Every structure is written in structure tokens, then in C-alpha cells.
């Protein structure tokens, strides 16, 4: 029996085939899926903020792109994944509300997207697919038997990347 492993906000989980990892209701947050297609081991991280440097608190490293990913990769390697086989897919980073005078905080989705791309680049993990931006929420599921990343939305349909 394959299991559906739930990943909360500011958290990450790892798993192996035939299980799936899912996170519900991504808004400005970003879901980052890493997958080793040979070992069929993957991880899904639900980050809230671009980086831990600007934050005044870093109690929970799973909250930030730059601290969550190294921890998740480490855990995947312990399970048998191989570092240079990892590929990344990302989704989220929306701007849910539109104000006439959008402040910096309203653009956090966009900044999250940029930060995740930069972190992946720094870690030398190839980003193979992305579905970011827009003004709508996403629920994402990483299927560990295939590495497919399924993205569900309310009005914009469903797709796999």
C-alpha cells in the first residue's frame, strides 16, 4: 500500500516509492520537490520565506529556502539517494491579494521564487520544471514512483510537471 505523506507549512518530509508527498494550499509559499529517479527517493519542502539571513528568528530551519534544502538533501542521502542525481521541481510563489500600492511584503511570493532558484543553483541541483507566480493557490503532490509533480488549483485546472 502506498502512503500519502502530508507536509505542513514550514516543514519538509522525505520518502520513497511507492509513497507520495503532498502539501496543501500553497499561496506565496513554495513547494520544492527533489527527486532521485534511480533510487526513487524524494523530498518535499514547504518553505515560507526566502532566506534566514534577513529574519530575526530562525528557530525552525524548515521555514527558509536556504536552510530547509540542505537538511532535506542530507536526509535523502541517508535514505540512499545520490546527491548528483537529484533534480528539482518547484511550484507556488503566488501573490494572493492585489493592492494598488503593493508593498514589499506583498511581493514575498515573487521573492520566494527568486530565492529558491538561487539556492538550488548554489547547491548545484538542476531545476527541471517550475510553476510559480500568478494569484492563485496550489496543492502539490510529488509521486515517488515516477517523480511526477502534480499541481492542483481551484480555477486553473490540474497539471503534472
Amino acid at each position, binding site marked *: 500500500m502506498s502512503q500519502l505523506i502530508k507536509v505542513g507549512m514550514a516543514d519538509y518530509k522525505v520518502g520513497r516509492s511507492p509513497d507520495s508527498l503532498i502539501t*496543501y494550499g500553497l499561496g506565496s509559499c513554495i513547494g520544492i520537490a527533489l527527486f532521485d529517479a534511480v533510487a526513487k527517493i524524494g523530498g518535499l519542502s514547504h518553505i*515560507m520565506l526566502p532566506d534566514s539571513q534577513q529574519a530575526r528568528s530562525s528557530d525552525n530551519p524548515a521555514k527558509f529556502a536556504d536552510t530547509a534544502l540542505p537538511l532535506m538533501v542530507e536526509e535523502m542521502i541517508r535514505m540512499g539517494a545520490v546527491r548528483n542525481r537529484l533534480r528539482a521541481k518547484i511550484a507556488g510563489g503566488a501573490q494572493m491579494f492585489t493592492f494598488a500600492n503593493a508593498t514589499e511584503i506583498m511581493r514575498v511570493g515573487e521573492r520566494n521564487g527568486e530565492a529558491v532558484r538561487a539556492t538550488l543553483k548554489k547547491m548545484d541541483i538542476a531545476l527541471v520544471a517550475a510553476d510559480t507566480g500568478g494569484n492563485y493557490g496550489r*496543492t502539490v503532490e510529488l509521486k515517488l514512483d515516477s517523480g511526477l509533480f502534480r499541481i492542483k488549483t481551484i480555477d486553473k485546472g490540474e497539471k503534472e510537471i
Partner: protein
Amino acid sequence: MDEEIFKLSPLQLDALREIGNVGAGNAATALSQILNKRIDMTVPQISVLPLGEVPEVVGGADAMVAGVYLRVYGPAPSSILFLLPRDSAFYLVDMLMGRAHGSTVQLNEMDESALMEIGNILSGAYLNALSHFTKLTLLPSIPALAMDMAGAILSVILIQLGQVGDHALVIETEFSSDNDGVKGHFFLIPDPGSLGTIMAAIGVKE
């Protein structure tokens, strides 16, 4: 922020609850007058929750909701979010627009505007109470509306709090109109630092 939240005394929590009570009472009265219907409300819940658990309050991160979001400006900046399950939002629009119960299945521009106005009126009523107790001048921004997953909508506020802590202080009231099956959650979430300002202003130190 976490420290600021966890050091609140029972007396301070009571004070917050009382403000919430009067504020939500004002808001419920306003809503009742607009709709010309009886509106029930719960005693406000003051909860300190890990950020990831806040969406559970409204039925989980993937629950379909309408959210009206306002920023509160002034000495104690905060966020206000009025969340309704999608069906409730549709029923509410039916009432506001004088349509038959259950006839709205999608919001047009006018419906959206009506929902935002409701958010505006509720927030104004709530902020009146808060201003009265604190003698702070608190002004709401114009409202913004989104219809989406609860987690996605709440992320806007949770991300702000996430910059300084891992917990949120949530003052939440549930409204309901039994006959029509309309339910809504009204959230006031003070920005980091605002809680101290509010506490100092109402003079409840410990």
C-alpha cells in the same frame, strides 16, 4: 515575537478576549443590520498556534474559502482577515443582492465588491472597539478579496509573522446565521511588536 506571545499573562489574555468580544459584537450588529437577520457569534477564541496549524481553524489548508483582507495602519499595525467557506460567501452574496438562496455559483464584479464592503464594515466595527479601549487611532486599508484555498490565503499573514517567530496569536470569532447556513471567521492578527503596543495602551501590564 514568540516571546512576546508566550509571556502574556492570563489577565492580559482576558483583556484581549474582552476587546475581541466587544469588537466582534459591534461587527455582528453591523452585519445583522445590513442583512436584517439575526446573527449569532461565538465568544472570541484567543489562540497561540504554530504557524502551520492556523489553517486548521477554518477546516484545513485546502478548504475553499473567500477571504477579505485588510491592513490596519496606525501605532499597532495588524492584519484583519474575514474568511468564509465558499458556500457561505455565495449565500451571503445572495442575501446582499436580494437573490434566491443558492442562486450564486460564481462571483461577478458587483458580488466581489459587496463582499469587500462587508469586510470593510465588519473591520470598521471591530476596530472601533479596539480604538476605544486602547485610545490608539487605527485605520483600515481598502479591502482586497481572494477566493481560494485557506492555506494559500492565510499564507499572506503567516509569512509576515514567520519573519520573527514560529507562532501566531490569533483572535478569532465565528459568525453564523442559522437559517441560511452562513458561517464566517474573523481574524485579527497583530504584527510583530503591535501586541506590546496594544497591551501598553490598555494599561494591563501583567
